[in-house]
């Protein structure tokens, strides 16, 4: 029913439908359906192994889903149906690359390019992928780095930056592509505790500015405070979802309660 209706006004910015993914005989995602509206911040929580990261990586096809579909702005990602409910035809590598830049992806381990300065880490995408002139790309990079409070560190290479600074460069790098939405894969998990806040601050500001975001995290205070909606995943399915007050305040499912109790101990 969904494949037929194209980008009508009621269509959400992101629609995930019946998404499945396995690795070998391990079924990691067992049918995920999520709609994310423009400007919404959705936080995904769950124990490790529940499929959160795989879900995020399927969205921009860092992993190829086994079944199901993803629409961004009414356009299917990674391929197209030959007809409504018809066969799935995968996109070419080039077409997929064009689609990926509409998702800004922030990795747990930053994955900055070590041979480039902070400025060039951010500028390389706009220059090589979006086709901006070099000077324009650099100017854009400087604006984005200033936005994440790194104006004084533009000429440093990643190894000269702290983890929190590196992650903020990574956020700036993603933003410089002017993505339709941002995906955060445990962005603070690899950071020393004292560096977590500076990254969360940037994310909080980004959410407030109206960026559509999907965030996988273990930072429950961030979820409570910033999320419009929290999704709790367990065993490759969505076990429960709702606004943070409801999900944290009066969880309906046993699994959710158990998980939250476990988290509270840390």
């Amino acid at each position, binding site marked *: 029913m969904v494949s037929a209706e194209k980008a009508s006004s009621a269509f959400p910015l992101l629609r995930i439908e019946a998404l499945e993914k396995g690795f070998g005989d391990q079924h990691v995602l067992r049918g995920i359906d999520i709609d994310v509206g423009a400007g919404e911040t959705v936080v995904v929580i769950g124990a490790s192994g529940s499929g959160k990261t795989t879900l995020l990586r399927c969205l921009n096809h860092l992993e190829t889903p086994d079944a199901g579909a993803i629409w961004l702005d009414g356009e299917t990602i990674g391929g197209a149906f030959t007809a409504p409910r018809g066969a799935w035809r995968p996109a070419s590598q*080039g077409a997929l*690359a064009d689609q*990926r*830049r509409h998702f800004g992806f922030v990795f747990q381990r930053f*994955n900055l390019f070590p041979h480039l300065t902070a400025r060039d880490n951010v500028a390389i*995408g706009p220059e*090589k*992928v979006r086709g901006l002139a070099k000077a324009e790309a650099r100017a854009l990079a400087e604006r984005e780095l200033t936005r994440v409070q790194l104006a004084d560190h533009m000429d440093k290479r990643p*190894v000269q930056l702290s983890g929190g600074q590196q992650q903020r460069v990574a956020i700036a790098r*993603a933003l410089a592509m002017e993505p339709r939405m941002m995906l955060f894969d445990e962005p603070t998990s690899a950071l020393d505790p004292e560096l977590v806040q500076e990254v969360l601050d940037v994310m909080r500001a980004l959410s407030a500015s109206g960026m559509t975001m999907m965030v996988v995290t273990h930072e429950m205070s961030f979820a409570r405070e910033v999320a419009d909606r929290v999704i709790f995943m367990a065993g490759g399915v969505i076990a429960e979802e709702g606004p943070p007050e409801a999900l944290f305040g009066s969880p309906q499912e046993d699994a959710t309660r158990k998980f939250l109790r476990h988290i509270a101990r840390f």
Partner: protein
Amino acid sequence: MTIDWAIVGKAAPLLLEGAVVTLQVSALSAIIGLFLGAVSGLASLSQSALLRWVVAAYVDFIRGTPLLIQIFLVFFALPVIGIRLDEFWAGVLALSLNAAAFVAEVVRGGVGAIEKGQTEAARSIGMKNGQILVYILLPQAYRQMVPPLTNEIISLVKNSSLLSVISVYELTRAGQAIISIHFVPFEIYTLLAVYYYVLLKALSWLSREVERRLPQW
């Protein structure tokens, strides 16, 4: 024993001519080998299973056969199918083809050793495979490829002495020619060892300089 210093004095400049040929053969083979090796190494990273297989088979053949046989194949077997090269170019071709296989492995290993997160990050900002290779992977691989490539070039210079068997008048052959006339193997082979040693030392020094000048991060 007595050392025939007169012959050493006479041989030194003659051997220098051979050393020049050794340098020429080595430099040409290194350039061609590096080029062919880089192309093959990149081909072995490509999406095409056929290309990967062709390179793997080539590397397997070169690694699985003695260089001496490869030299004979180029020099004696190619004319049978109508390709006639003089000793010099046959030697260059044999050494190049040999080096290319090892260089291909270095390139494949160097690029392959770069963390997967780099490719994923480049992908996530919309880069295509060619761009990822050129802007992200190769610039990081250069640096770690310099030491193993130096080893390959050092082997290549040493291996060039095998070309004496097809009468390329390089350093070893030049020495043998003197020995066959004057029968002074001790003096000449010692001199040859010194010549090679100096050549290779210079090469290692050069490589360290290149490595030192590469950007650090």
